[in-house]
């Protein structure tokens, strides 16, 4: 009986295991994860999980793994992969032979050079356990210093305010969300955080962060020291490549895969946060995406290819962030855009459509209360996938339904 092994039991690995069964695979499936918890969704960790004590949002109940004959091995570390023998060695000495292997090892929060991110007053956030520890430290009147004005940092600042804690966000670049978010939207988000009482400091260089007198002390390059009850480091994530690298797989900002999610070794695939892949839609440019939806879509694509269906990446990058009552959604990659048009949706909500010099729609970014931008962003995504060159005037006019452009 063929044996498929999945290393990494996050969103991507778990979805892949179930997708194998949905597509009729009746061999053995082993799903291996380092965390003690069954696979769960990570997006709530910077939001709801910190506000209420909640159970992790599990991808599936343990019974479902049993029903689907998925051998879920938690709290289990893979020590090595041997592509030549087609085996996986576990840290406990066991060896598993595989017919096909999927690496869904995810990413880890990037450490601040020289800083212990697991200190009592200096933390990072990736796992449910991290969120529980952080939650215990967030309460009214406390001061949290957030290193990094990216999505995690800003979502945490919003959550800290909701809990009555004070937040200072420290960003080295001249503005927040420099990576991937247009200035117009970043400004609106910054303004909202300031209204909510968050102290956002951009263009600030940090010298060091250390624990001092039962506090976290953020030492800035100009000599100022920001003292906080807790410092949280949210400066991005690095792909978990160690296993792949040791196995001799090609690495290029992640485990390098082709458009079918095949690594450089036969019968080994990689998907989700850990891999970089070529995006045909953007001239074959190699990207790595850290998003919930990418994890889901690549799980499904990897499975199709593991079963010999030969599907290729066609998805448009897409993600969201929730802060206060606002949701930001972005579809596509805006780099390469030479102009944008703005479509106002009322109640302060708007979408920016990013076009290249030939008028092709490359990306759309929208922000508004709740999910008001979602439908138009979804339609924009379909236009982007179709490599459409929509009339900028029609994109701008909210009276023109985007659906009508799709049919054109």
């Amino acid at each position, binding site marked *: 009986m063929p044996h498929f092994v999945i290393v990494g039991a996050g969103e991507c690995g778990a*979805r892949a295991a*179930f*997708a194998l069964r*949905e597509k009729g695979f009746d061999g053995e499936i082993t799903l291996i994860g380092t965390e003690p918890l069954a696979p769960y969704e990570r997006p709530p960790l910077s939001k709801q999980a910190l506000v209420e004590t909640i159970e992790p*949002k599990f991808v599936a109940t343990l019974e479902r793994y049993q029903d689907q004959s998925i051998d879920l091995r938690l709290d289990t570390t893979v020590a090595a992969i041997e592509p030549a023998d087609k085996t996986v060695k576990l840290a406990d000495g066991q060896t598993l032979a595989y017919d096909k292997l999927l690496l869904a090892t995810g990413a880890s929060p990037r450490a601040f050079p020289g800083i212990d991110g697991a200190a009592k007053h200096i933390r990072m956030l990736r796992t449910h356990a991290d969120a529980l520890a952080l939650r215990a430290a967030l309460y009214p009147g406390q001061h949290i210093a957030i290193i990094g004005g990216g999505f995690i940092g800003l979502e945490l600042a919003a959550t800290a305010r909701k809990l009555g804690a004070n937040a200072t966000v420290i960003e080295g670049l001249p503005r927040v969300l420099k990576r991937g978010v247009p200035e117009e939207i970043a400004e609106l988000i910054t303004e909202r955080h300031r209204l909510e009482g968050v102290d956002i400091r951009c263009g600030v260089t940090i010298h060091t962060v250390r624990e001092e007198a039962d506090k976290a002390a953020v030492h800035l390059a100009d000599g100022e020291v920001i003292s906080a009850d807790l410092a949280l480091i949210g400066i991005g994530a690095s792909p978990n490549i160690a296993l792949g690298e040791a196995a001799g797989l090609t690495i290029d900002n992640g485990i390098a895969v082709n458009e079918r999610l095949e690594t450089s070794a036969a019968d080994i695939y990689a998907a989700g946060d850990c891999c970089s892949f070529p995006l045909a839609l953007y001239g074959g440019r190699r990207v790595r995406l850290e998003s*919930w*939806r990418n994890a*889901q879509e690549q799980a*499904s694509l990897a499975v199709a290819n593991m079963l010999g269906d030969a599907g290729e990446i066609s998805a448009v990058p897409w993600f*969201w962030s929730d802060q206060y009552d606002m949701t930001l959604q972005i579809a596509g990659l805006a780099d390469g855009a030479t102009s944008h048009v703005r479509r106002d949706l009322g109640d302060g909500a708007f979408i920016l459509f990013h076009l290249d010099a030939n008028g092709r729609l490359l990306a759309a970014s929208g922000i508004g209360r*709740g*999910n*008001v931008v*979602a*439908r138009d962003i*979804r*339609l924009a995504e379909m236009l982007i996938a179709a490599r459409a060159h929509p009339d900028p005037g029609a994109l701008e006019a909210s009276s023109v*339904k985007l*659906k009508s452009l799709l049919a054109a």
Partner: protein
Amino acid sequence: MSNNWIEVCAADAIDEEDVIRFDHDGRTFAVYRSPEDDYFATDGLCTHEKIHLANGLVMDNIIECPKHNGRFDYRTGEAKGAPVCVNLKTYPVKVEDGTVFIAL
């Protein structure tokens, strides 16, 4: 079972292949008009994370959740795959004299 018909809106207040949100008595619903000009109604919140479906996109007979792209056939409420696995509850709908009613 005696249906309690509740007035929703004018039939032309919903575009073809579109959806609106309808709140009634502390509950929230999504009311759809299909490309074939038929009307349907379901619970208003996605079964995955309680997101209002009426902000989502209707394509043919599918409503897609605006947050995580979970898909349902709004005629039957059937969940069409991950991340949604629980079907949506549906409700009878009728159109009389240009007005849409939902049976609760």
